[in-house]
């Protein structure tokens, strides 16, 4: 369906999007994940046709879109902070695209009501935009993008400005909506939990380039580089040595399948699921910090001079100063070249 090939967007001397490839298939949700300023919003604007591209190709079902202006692409775009029209009421916003498409008044009213029901706002049709809460505005923006039945839906940080309870609720609703409509979608966010919850496929961007792409679970299990692991909140990194016998860490030698002949300095990052409390575990340490996190406790354990983070059920978490034994699951040990 949507194919983006080697797209480059430059702003003066800086390259905002630097040779990005991307494909979105029928019914697929792709999340573009990256920190702010990585070029993900610019990429969306380029796909929508709002941002001219310096080179590369954006095409839909094989048709090059270079000469198709944004108003003829039939792509829905939900803007960061929504960009709702302040001079029109809710129905006026939602029906805007239909009006542009010259849909008759009666049909338009019917469609608007239908989409408003879909997002659960059917009784707000006549309300002004200014009085709406953030969550309501978000739904209006979603309804506005959906009303014209776009062939692709793009969402730019749609939950960015919302409080946590709203975020979780709307995230679930967007997921349901995308499942139901089978609309191909691109979801741009800087929050990996949002991306994991929503996407079939994940594209990680950094400084205008795609760092890694693939199914969400696969990307999380094996981040392509240390920066990505860090972005997912893994860590902290610890210096180690890799040679033919295995990986020499402060907590002993681990057998890993990436053994090399010559000894190499590396950085080791442990995925959160790599550590578990185990009285017979090989790593012995002392709890130096304990943070309450609801049903869990997050412990920082000092072992052989290095800090490890481990999550345990809150009820039987040890206290600060207690000794603790841990087992390490080799699959969760991520090895990156030392820089």
């Amino acid at each position, binding site marked *: 369906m949507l194919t983006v090939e080697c797209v480059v967007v430059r702003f003066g001397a800086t390259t905002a999007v630097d040779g990005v490839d991307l494909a979105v298939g029928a019914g697929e949700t792709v999340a573009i994940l990256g920190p702010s300023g990585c070029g993900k919003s610019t990429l969306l604007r380029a796909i929508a046709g709002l941002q001219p591209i310096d080179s590369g190709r954006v095409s839909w079902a094989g048709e090059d879109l270079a000469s198709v202006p944004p108003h003829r692409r039939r792509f829905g775009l939900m803007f960061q902070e929504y960009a709702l*029209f*302040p001079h029109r009421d809710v129905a006026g916003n939602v029906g805007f*695209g239909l009006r542009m498409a010259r849909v008759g008044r009666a049909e338009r009213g019917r469609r608007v009501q239908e989409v408003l029901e879909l997002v659960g706002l059917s009784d707000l049709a006549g309300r002004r935009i*200014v009085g709406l809460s953030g969550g309501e505005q978000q739904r209006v923006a979603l309804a506005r993008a959906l009303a014209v039945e776009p062939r692709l839906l793009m969402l730019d940080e749609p939950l960015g400005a919302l409080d946590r309870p709203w975020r979780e609720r709307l995230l679930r609703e967007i997921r349901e909506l995308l499942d139901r409509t089978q609309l191909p979608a691109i979801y741009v966010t800087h929050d990996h939990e949002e991306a994991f919850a929503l996407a079939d496929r994940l594209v990680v961007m950094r400084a205008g380039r795609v760092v890694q792409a693939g199914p969400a679970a696969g990307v999380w299990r094996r981040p392509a580089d240390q920066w990505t692991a860090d972005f997912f909140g893994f860590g902290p990194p610890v210096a180690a040595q890799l040679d033919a016998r295995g990986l020499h860490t402060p907590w002993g030698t681990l057998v890993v399948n990436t053994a090399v002949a010559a000894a190499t300095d590396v950085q080791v990052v442990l995925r959160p699921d790599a550590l578990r409390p185990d009285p017979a575990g090989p790593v012995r340490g002392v709890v130096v910090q304990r943070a309450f996190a609801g049903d869990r406790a997050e412990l920082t354990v000092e072992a052989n001079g290095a800090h490890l983070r481990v999550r345990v059920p809150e009820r039987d978490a040890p206290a600060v100063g207690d000794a603790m034994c841990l087992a390490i699951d080799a699959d969760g040990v991520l090895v990156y070249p030392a820089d």
Partner: protein
Amino acid sequence: MSRAGRVLRALIPLGFLGVFFAWPVAAIIGRSVSAGALHRVLTDRGLRHVAWFTLWQALVATALTLAVGLPAAYVVARYDFRGKRLFRAFVTVPFVLPTVVVATAFLVLFRPGGALSFLGWQRGVGPLLVAEVFFNVAVIVRTVGGFWAHLDPRRTDAARVLGASRVRAFREVTLPLLGPPIAAAASIVFLFTFTAFGVVLLISDPAHATLEVEIYRQATELLDFPTAAALALVQMVAVFALLLVLARMQERRAVAQRLVAARDASRRARGWERAVVGGVLGGTVVFLGGPLLVLAVESLRLGGSWSLEPYRALSSSAATDTLFVPAWEALRNSLEFAAVAAVIAVVVGGLASVAIASRPGRATRTMDTLLMLPLGTSAVTVGFGFIVALDRWPLDLRAKLVLVPLAQSVVAIPFVIRAVVPALRSIDPRLRDAASVLGAPPRRVWREVDLPIAMRAFVVGFGFAVAVSLGEFGATLFVARSDSPTIPIAISRFLARPGDLNIGQAMAMSTVLMVVTGAVVLAIEHLQVRQAGDF
């Protein structure tokens, strides 16, 4: 919009101002240079005295305006009180009131037997300075107060928590942040007082004339066009130098400022603050409202008793002798001229605003400055330029009625631009993107997004243009034919005649003009408040 369309859109305002502003100015420069008048003007002692007086009266008036305006700006910015909207509108009224109305009001106050006659000022510098402060308080209250209201009060809170006293926090935190807007507002007041004409001509005495009045005198009484032109040139250079400094300052003012909604920054006064707020509000209301009230009341009195005679006399043949036409015809002239001028100003100023706001870049910045030049040019210069430049081939408009609205529109255009450009610039560009993605072609985007959002600003600009044109005095005085006076001209004719009935008729006409202008201003304020609440 297509490229050709964009160019056309920019060419109309540039062409209009080229013919009706740049050309007259060029003609003035030509006159002053060709006759060697510039050298004469720069060395003449009498004229140097005029320049010196112009400068110091402007400086003193600016300082006094700050002293009166800043307390009111503070109260409006930081406190909630009932009738705040009304107060803001009320403060604006003097600023848009015709100069002749204000001049009449102060002449009445200071005349023998007037409410302030005990000061013994009559005509002269004292009443002049008071009138100038009266005019310009609005500039301080609105620009400084507006900025102040959006200044995050948590900064001061932070200073207080860190151990600064109330006064210290103001001095260390608020004042440095307010510095640039205060300086900008003060420069605008200086600009207005430096080029003051009507109040000086009508209130001051002959020994204390400004450059504006001297230009008028040289051109119309002494018929010495080269000297008048040279004086106009000197004034223009001084004003443009000031405008450049002002533009620089505004660029620097653009440092990142965290601004908050005014609602979060103001609160009700407590304890002793109530006395301060009440005192400042009361004092301001008396200072600004008193003269106008006295004017309206005195217009209903003649020879110490209540009388409608001043109004009735307006339709008398004696009045017609003074004005050359019946008084109601002056009113009709004023309304017609103002309507035509406002339409021209909105069309030309609107197109210019669209061009200025369309995209940032050096070209539009240059255009911005070019289009603002008329703001810095005094009305007298515009009027004088008209009679110097538009009296021969290829554009001979001598004694044509259309000169009046044309001159008034040149004076009013900057006000339209000031009203419309910020509204257009404030439109979130993503709204246009959203419309575009939803299927709106480029021209439709303008109609669906820009126009409806900026509509109120266009209406406000139109209102300002009407108010400015209704009260326009300096330029109109040059170009109006004696048999088609406007109300301000008519008032000045009554003022120039002796006798209670003549000044009574001046007061009566001033009151009428004040009511009309006040109604226009209140309508504008109403629209602006709704706009601020909406977006």
